[in-house]
Each structure stands twice: as structure tokens, then as C-alpha cells.
């Protein structure tokens, strides 16, 4: 009897294996069918071009002539030693160090404020969010118009308060801040909405329990709000940093592809554009894109490591 059962079980197992094979294989074939075209797309339009950029960064090439000259790391040396490029890297870091903290803090304050009100929350949420959906190009020109030295409305308002008209975009010191104000203005709404969603998920009971334990407002904020919100804050910070490192549209349209007076507003990406498509130094431009890639990776990894530690 036991032997018969054993044979039956064994027979069933063998049968199951055969069935599993044909169903599994059918599913596998379907999977390959689903992914074939898109994978081909990614290889052709993402992976191969990236390798080609690496390859090109070791060359000297002006786009028109058929020869490309292998020059090893010379482009990279130029990228870090050329004073103009050093200024550009410095500008971009300045963009990041000023815009990102301000962006995150202001968005957080805004999100906290939105969380406090019930009546009118959706209305103000809407108002705050509108800058994000509008064309960055259009807004850049509005900024250029508002901050004009003669006739711009900002100087007009300053004049009303008795302050002398500022050169703004004509000044090597001030122009970068004009661009920064645009970057910050257009992103705080978006970030505030994300942070608000995170805030709304924190259970009230946490706060109530803390109150029973006698926690102060600041302690509640620090140990409940910030800690619970941490993943969202990290996300907002990392995304904001990556976007700011890649700033192009605002610089190009507010200050020009050249990069403003004394190149004071030039960012890495406007410089890549300038080097490749105005100066036709394809190899050098490719090297700068590789450096940008490495910078983004390093900063992202560092941020995620440092900021995620806060949850412990």
C-alpha cells in the first residue's frame, strides 16, 4: 500500500515537473516578447551612446573633420585646470549649496503650514503648485523682464521703498542670485506637496503619546516629525540636488548661453552646450559630461548615506 502510494506520489511529481516546465516556458517566452523591443531601445539609445561618450572623451574632434585624434586624459586635465571651467564648476556648486538647502527648508515650512490649516488647504496647495507646471522657458523670460535694470518691476518696487536700482543681470555678483531665485521659486511648490503627503501620513497617536510623556513642541518636531519625514526629506534633497547640478534652461534663457557677465552664471550643462555646439570641441565636452556624471553619482551616494543615518 505504501509502495503504491509512493509510486503514485512519484508519478505525480514527475507529471508536475513536466507541466511546470511547459507553463514556465510559455511564460518565459511571453516575458521575452514583452521586453524585447524596449530592451533593444534602451541598449541603442541609452547604453551605446553612453559608452560612446566615454570613448569620445579621450579624443579630440571638431565634429566636421573625419579624423579623431586619441589624446588620452588630456581633456580631463583641461577640464579641471582651465580657469573658465573651474569657474563653471564653482558656479554650479554655488547653485547647489544655496538653492538646495533653501528649497528644502522653505518647502518644509510651507508643508508644515499647509498641514495646519484645513479650510483653504486645497486652494493654497494649488496656488503653490502652479509654478511647477509652467514652462521654465516662459518663466525665465518673465524673470529677465522683472529684473531688468531699467524698467523692470523689481527695481520699480525697490524705488518705491527708497532703495537704489540694482544692476541685477548686468552685475557679475548679482546675476547668479537672480537665476537662483527663479530656481527656488519654481520648485518649492512641488517639494512642499511631496512633503505634505509625507506629513499627512504621520499618525496623530505619535504626537498624543509624546504629549502624555511631556514632550515639548521642539522635541515633538525633532523626534517625531523630522524622523518620520526623513525618507521623504532625503528624496526631496537628493532630487533637488541632481536637478540643480543639471541646471540649463534657466541659465540659458535668463543670462544667455555664454553665462552672463564674466561667466558668473554659467553652469556645467550650459558650458557643455557651449563647448560642444559653439566651440565644436566634442572631446572636451564629452569629458565634461563624464565628470558631471561622476559628480552626480558621488553627491547622490554621499547624501543618501549621510542623510539616511539620521533615522538611527
Amino acid at each position, binding site marked *: 500500500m505504501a509502495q503504491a502510494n509512493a509510486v503514485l506520489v512519484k508519478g505525480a511529481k514527475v507529471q508536475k515537473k513536466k507541466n511546470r516546465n511547459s507553463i514556465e516556458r510559455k511564460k518565459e517566452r511571453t516575458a521575452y516578447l514583452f521586453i524585447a523591443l*524596449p530592451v533593444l531601445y534602451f541598449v541603442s539609445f541609452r547604453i551605446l551612446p553612453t559608452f560612446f561618450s566615454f570613448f569620445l572623451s579621450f579624443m579630440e574632434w571638431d565634429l566636421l573633420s573625419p579624423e579623431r585624434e586619441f589624446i588620452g586624459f588630456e581633456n580631463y586635465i583641461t577640464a579641471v585646470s582651465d580657469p573658465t571651467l573651474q569657474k563653471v564648476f564653482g558656479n554650479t556648486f554655488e547653485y547647489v549649496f544655496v538653492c538646495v538647502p533653501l528649497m528644502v527648508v522653505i518647502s518644509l515650512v510651507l508643508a508644515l503650514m499647509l498641514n495646519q490649516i484645513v479650510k483653504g488647504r486645497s486652494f493654497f496647495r494649488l496656488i503653490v503648485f502652479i509654478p511647477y507646471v509652467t*514652462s521654465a522657458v516662459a*518663466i525665465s523670460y518673465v524673470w529677465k523682464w522683472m529684473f531688468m535694470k531699467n524698467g523692470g518691476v523689481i527695481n520699480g518696487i525697490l524705488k518705491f521703498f527708497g532703495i537704489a536700482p540694482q544692476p541685477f543681470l548686468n552685475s557679475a555678483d548679482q546675476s547668479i542670485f537672480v537665476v537662483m531665485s527663479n530656481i527656488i521659486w519654481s520648485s518649492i511648490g512641488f517639494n512642499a506637496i511631496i512633503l505634505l503627503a509625507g506629513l499627512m501620513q504621520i499618525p496623530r497617536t505619535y504626537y498624543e503619546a509624546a504629549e502624555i510623556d511631556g514632550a515639548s513642541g521642539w522635541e515633538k518636531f525633532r523626534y517625531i516629525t523630522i524622523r518620520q519625514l526623513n525618507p521623504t526629506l532625503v528624496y526631496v534633497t537628493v532630487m533637488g540636488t541632481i536637478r540643480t547640478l543639471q541646471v540649463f534652461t534657466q541659465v540659458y534663457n535668463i543670462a544667455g548661453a555664454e553665462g552672463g557677465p564674466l561667466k558668473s552664471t554659467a553652469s*556645467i550643462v550650459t558650458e557643455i552646450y557651449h563647448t560642444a555646439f559653439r566651440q565644436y570641441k566634442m572631446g572636451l565636452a564629452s569629458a565634461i559630461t*563624464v565628470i558631471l556624471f561622476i559628480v552626480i553619482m558621488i553627491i547622490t551616494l554621499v547624501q543618501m548615506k549621510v542623510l539616511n543615518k539620521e533615522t538611527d
Partner: protein
Amino acid sequence: MTLLYLAFVVIGVVMVFPFIWMIATSFKTGTDIYSLSLLPKKFTLDNYREVLAGSDFPRWFLNSFLVAGITTLSVLVFDPLLGYAFCKYRFRGKEAIFTMLLSTMMIPTEMMIIPWYMMVNQLGWNNTYWSMLFPGLSSAFGIFLMRQFFTGVPDELLDAGRIDGLSEFGVYTRIALPLVTPALSALGIFTFLGNWNSFLWPVIALDSKEKYTITLGLAQFSAENASQWELIMTGASVATIPIIIIFLIFQKKIIEGVQLTGVKG
């Protein structure tokens, strides 16, 4: 509490003022724009006449709409398909291929624009709609997002469909897809907006005026009419107002989509 609302009013003004100033300027005459009053001394529609009838703006608007629309459609077809495949199927090489796709998320667009430009030149894609379409037909982020959402679809439901005689594709379209519509609409909205606003690649790849997207067209228009701010602001308004209207109509979905990706991400 009233202090809070007061603060909101101030913030609201700061957020909205650039738009108001933009629109106000578009209704003023060339000499009037330098006055600081909000309302035009002499309300004029001449600027709009010139921009809408006498320039390429309508054409540029159409181009942007076409490009953003087709790209979004493509993303909505392919990204969920891949997300589903990586989530619900087992196949050889799955981990490797998925890792490869995910790693493309790390590649900044800037690294690809020079090779793309060379592709466009050497394959004769200059100034075609295709040159604006090919970069955005699928996104690694979208695939990742859809995969996350498909994990919430129970396998039993899919098996039930198979038992009922649906093909694999039928299971996908009739059972799985309808269950992830919030993610689909979020992905669609982001893709459309992102594509509509794209500037770097159009600036590089297009030099025929009639193929310009509206972002590039506005920049070109502003360069050509450099000191006529009333015209530039009108162009900016034409570029901005339709999107704001669409946003106001779909606002609930859009804001939900943003929160969805932010909290899950």
C-alpha cells in the same frame, strides 16, 4: 491662526505675482510696459494678434503637443509592459537585464546628447519629428515605478484569468493594467509635462524654425524681438496659459500623482 492665513496670502502673492505681471504686460502697449501700474493704461489686444496670427506660435504649440503626446503614449504602452514582465514573470537573465535598465536611470541626459546629435546627423534625422521623439519613448524610472505598483497586484487574480482562458496578454490588459491606473495617470502626467518643457535637446537638435517646439520657439521669438517685452510676455503667456488651464482641470489627479511618486520613491 490669522497670522498663518496672512502668511499664506503673502506666499500666494509671491507665487502668483510673476504670472500676473506677465499677463498684464501682454495687454500693454510698447510704451506703457515701463509703467509700474498693474492695469494697462490702454488695454490692447494687438500683441496677441501679432503673436497668434503673425508668428509661428500656433505651429510651435502643435509641434509640442504632437511630440509630448506621442512620447507619453509610447511611455504608457511600454513602461507598464516592462514593469509587469519584471514583476510577474521569471525568466533567465531577469536580474541582469533589470539591473542594466535601472542603471540607465543614473545616466544624466547630458551624457547622451552628443552621441544622439551624431546619430541625428549621420542617419539623416535632422529636423524631423522623430529626432524629437526618440529620446523619450520609454523611461527607466517609469519601468521602475510600474514594477513597484504591479507588486501590489495579487498573483491569484492573474491565475484566475489564465484559468478563465485569457491569453497572457489578455491577463495583462484585462486584469493587471486596470488595477494600476493611479500609477498610469501619474506616469502619463509626468511624462507629458516633462516632455512639454524639455529644452536642452530641442535647442541642440532643431534648427528648422517650423519644427521648433514651443519652448525653443519662445526662446527664438524672444531673441528676435529682443526689446519688445510686450511681445515676449505675450509669447510667454501663450506658452503658459493653456498648460495652466489643463492643470486646473486635472489638478486633483496631478497633485495625487506627485504625492504618489514622492512617497513611494
